[in-house]
Structures are given as structure tokens and as C-alpha cells.
């Protein structure tokens, strides 16, 4: 038996008895960041693959959502900062070893690229908005220029979108001190989840059945890949060292087991997968349920992951008297 008790008080808020530094703000940011990556990716993909006619929403209108969604996410991120007035300090240095530093600089590049994406599709996507904007001098010429280079802009958007999607996972996986996060599968998992959320949003927002069906088919593929990545995550933890095995325990029993398997895997991945599949076969007409479930599942993945990483740890002390410890002293 080994028992480690604190003799002097150590109840540093948000650190003891277990880490609680990140609550809803970081999961919201990670989810919306992933969604932004997906929106930029599919907007670029629809354009590059010549789907302007068959997927008009994705090709022309989707790009506008990306910076809006990202800005909501970054507002949540700002709320999380404890030393808010020093937020500009992210941009007075670049730290090679810090994923968060990479991320904050990546976001600086995402905005102008996203803006170019919007400008290059503004006239066909939002004619009213384009007409209003064109009253400003030079804007018509700017729109012409962006439209001429719209394929180049789309091609540049894709690596940045994928980078943003993967970054939201690496941000957590880089913490070797938190065993549940410390698996590089989080990068691809969050990327695929972000793409899937964007596809779900396209199903909700597209007006034409053909485009909805296109994105339902894409989403089915993404959900299958995501299920495979979740399986790899679990296998990775199950074949890891003691810390990984303890982290795995958090999703096998306790309050997070039902949340992870029931709500995230069941309601957020398997059920929408089945619904979308049945809808494509024409057996169901519940257009909105599956994509809404996918979006909820996407957020739950971030919230559960952020919570569990903070619960998994290298150091644990008993901070309260526990009479059950007496039982463990018996030979």
C-alpha cells in the first residue's frame, strides 16, 4: 500500500484537487476552430473540383461563415484568459516549441486568406452584399482581381484550413503532463471532426437536395473515419503505460463513460451515420436531425477531451481525510 497525503494545505484554485483550468471556453474555441477549418476546406474544395453548379452553397456562400465562426471561437478564447489585458503578448514573440504560439500566428494568417476566399466568391454568393460593397471605391477592382485568382486563393486555403484543423488537436496532444491528451491521434481526430461538422452545416444550410445529398455522402465517409480514429485512440490508451491505462479508466467507468460512449460515440457519430445512410437510400426524411447531432457530437468531443485531459495526471494526493484508508492499512 502506498498512500500520499498532504500535510500542509495545498488547494490552489483550479489546480487542486484536480486540474480545472479550462472549462467551456477552450472546448468552444477548439470546436469552432475545427468548424472554421472545415468551412474553408469545403469552400475551396467545391470551387477547385468545379462544383459551382452542383454545390452552389459550398462554392459561393460557405466562405463567409468561416471568419464569423472563428471570431466567436476566439472571443471564447479571450474569455478564458486570466490576464486579459496582456492578450497582445501572443504577438510580441514566436515560441517554436509552443503549439499555442504556432496557433496564434496561424490564426493571423487565416483571417486574410479567409477574406480573400470571401471576396473571390462574393458576387455569385451574396449579390446584395456585393452590390452594397461595390459602392466603395476600388472594391469592384478588388473583387475582379480576387475572382480572377479564385482558384489560386482556394488552393492556398486548403493547407491553412488543414493546418488549423490539426492544430486544434495538437494544442492538447502536446501536453505530455496530461496522459489522456498525450496522443498524436488527437490531431487527425479533431481535423476529421471539424470537417464533419462543416459538412453537417452544409447539409443544414444548402437549399438544393443534390447539394445536401452530396454533403450527406461526404459526412458518412467522415463519420466512418472518425469512428476508426476513436477506435485507434482507445487502442493507443489501452496499450500504453500506467498513465495511459489510468486515463483510459476515465472513459471505461465513472461519470464520463456514459458521456463518451453514449452521447459522443452513440448519439454524435453512430446515430447520425445510420440516419444519413437511411436518408440517402430514401427510407427516411428527417433532414435536420443527423447534422444537428453531428454538430452536438463535435462539441462534446472537445468538451470531453478537455475535461478528461485535466483529470488524467501524474501526481495525485489525498487532500481530505478518508476513513476508507484505514481499511487499506490492514495486512
Amino acid at each position: 500500500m502506498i498512500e500520499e497525503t498532504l500535510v500542509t494545505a495545498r488547494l490552489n484554485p483550479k489546480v487542486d484537487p484536480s486540474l480545472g483550468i479550462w472549462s467551456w471556453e477552450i472546448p468552444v474555441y477548439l470546436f469552432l476552430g475545427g468548424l472554421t477549418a472545415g468551412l474553408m476546406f469545403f469552400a475551396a474544395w467545391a470551387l477547385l473540383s468545379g462544383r459551382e453548379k452542383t454545390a452552389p452553397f459550398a462554392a459561393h456562400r460557405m466562405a463567409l461563415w468561416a471568419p464569423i465562426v472563428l471570431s466567436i471561437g476566439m472571443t471564447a478564447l479571450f474569455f478564458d484568459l486570466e490576464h486579459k489585458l496582456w492578450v497582445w503578448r501572443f504577438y510580441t514573440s514566436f515560441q517554436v516549441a509552443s503549439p499555442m504560439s504556432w496557433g496564434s500566428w496561424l490564426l493571423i494568417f487565416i483571417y486574410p486568406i479567409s477574406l480573400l476566399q470571401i471576396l473571390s466568391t462574393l458576387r455569385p454568393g451574396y449579390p446584395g452584399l456585393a452590390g452594397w460593397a461595390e459602392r466603395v471605391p476600388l472594391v469592384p477592382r478588388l473583387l475582379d482581381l480576387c475572382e480572377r485568382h479564385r482558384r489560386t486563393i482556394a488552393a492556398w486555403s486548403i493547407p491553412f484550413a488543414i493546418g488549423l484543423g490539426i492544430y486544434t488537436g495538437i494544442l492538447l496532444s502536446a501536453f505530455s503532463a496530461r496522459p489522456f491528451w498525450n496522443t498524436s491521434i488527437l490531431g487527425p481526430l479533431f481535423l476529421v471532426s471539424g470537417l464533419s461538422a462543416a459538412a453537417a452545416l452544409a447539409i443544414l444550410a444548402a437549399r438544393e437536395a443534390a447539394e445536401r445529398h452530396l454533403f450527406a455522402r461526404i459526412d458518412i465517409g467522415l463519420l466512418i473515419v472518425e469512428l476508426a480514429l476513436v477506435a485507434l485512440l482507445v487502442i493507443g490508451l489501452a496499450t500504453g503505460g500506467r498513465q495511459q491505462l489510468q486515463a483510459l479508466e476515465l472513459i471505461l467507468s465513472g461519470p464520463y463513460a456514459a458521456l463518451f460512449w453514449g452521447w459522443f460515440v452513440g448519439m454524435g457519430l453512430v446515430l447520425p451515420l445510420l440516419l444519413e445512410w437511411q436518408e440517402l437510400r430514401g427510407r427516411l426524411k428527417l433532414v435536420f436531425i443527423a447534422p444537428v447531432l453531428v454538430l452536438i457530437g463535435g462539441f462534446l468531443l472537445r468538451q470531453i477531451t478537455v475535461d478528461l485531459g485535466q483529470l488524467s495526471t501524474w501526481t495525485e494526493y489525498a487532500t481530505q481525510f478518508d476513513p476508507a484508508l484505514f481499511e487499506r492499512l490492514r495486512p
Partner: protein
Amino acid sequence: MTRYAMVIDTRLCIGCGDCVVACKNENRVPAGLNRDWVVERTSGAWPRLETEFRSERCNHCDHATCVQACPTGASHHWGDTNVVLVNPDQCTGCKACIAACPYDARYITPEGYIDKCTFCHHRVEQGLDPACVATCPTRCMHFGRLDDPRSRVAQLLRERNGETLKPETGNLPNVYYLK
């Protein structure tokens, strides 16, 4: 690189907590927060039980994951040493360093920046021991330079086996416990 280390003799420590009080006084640590703490470790089965007291704090790791995780450079090594410090004027309070520390040695100040044990570098600069070491009534705590073979800490580690906490994290911690 100058490597400062703390060597704590668990055979002499009685768990009185004076190191904790000394730190709070010296560094004006706000109420409810602690830079150091004492752990009582009991092992074995009754009647063969062993107890060990450990005064714990930031391990001022050579390979400090908190310094790596910091996006602004606020968390840094003090000059060419292993002493890990936080510059409040660069800290955004993003808490990445708290998540990155396997020893949970950091906390959030009421002002919002992150703080932690500094090895009392303001005293070390003047040739003094950190407050906890200077206060210890059993003299179980020692502080000095590991890279100087004549220092007390280097001697103690040569004479007796010193263990660090969770060396398997790979952080190369610099607080040693003599068994």
C-alpha cells in the same frame, strides 16, 4: 549552464511545514495559494508501515515542459540556469504552463498571471539560501550548485542516493530527496 538544486533529507524532515510558512512570508504569496507543500507518504501494511515526509515545490526542470508550452516566452529559464521564472508582464494567463507541469506546481494569482516557486532567486543573487531552506528547523533542506562538485548538494548526492519525483516524465527535475 549553472544548475541549482535542492536536496531534502527525508530522514530528517518531520513535516512541520515551516518551509511553507517561510515561503508565504518571504514571497508574499496571496491567501489560499501555495508555492510549496509537504506530503506525507505512508507505505507498507500494518504493523510494518513506513512514513516519509517530503517538502515539495517546483522542480526547476532542465527540460521544463512549462517553458516549452508558454506561447509568449513569459515562462523562461533565469539566465543560464535551470531556475524557471514567470514574467508577469508577458503572461496572458492562458494556463498552458499549468497544463504542461506534471507536478502541478503552478497557480493563478488574483491579478491573473501565473506564478510559482522561484527558488527565491532574489535571495540566491545575494548569496543566500531560499527562504524555505534557511528556515528549516531540522536542517533537512540543502540548496546549491550541482555543477560545483564541492557544493553541499553535490556532496550529499555523491554520498547518499538521491531520488527525484517522477523522473519518468523526462523533465529532468532538480529537487532531490535523500532516502
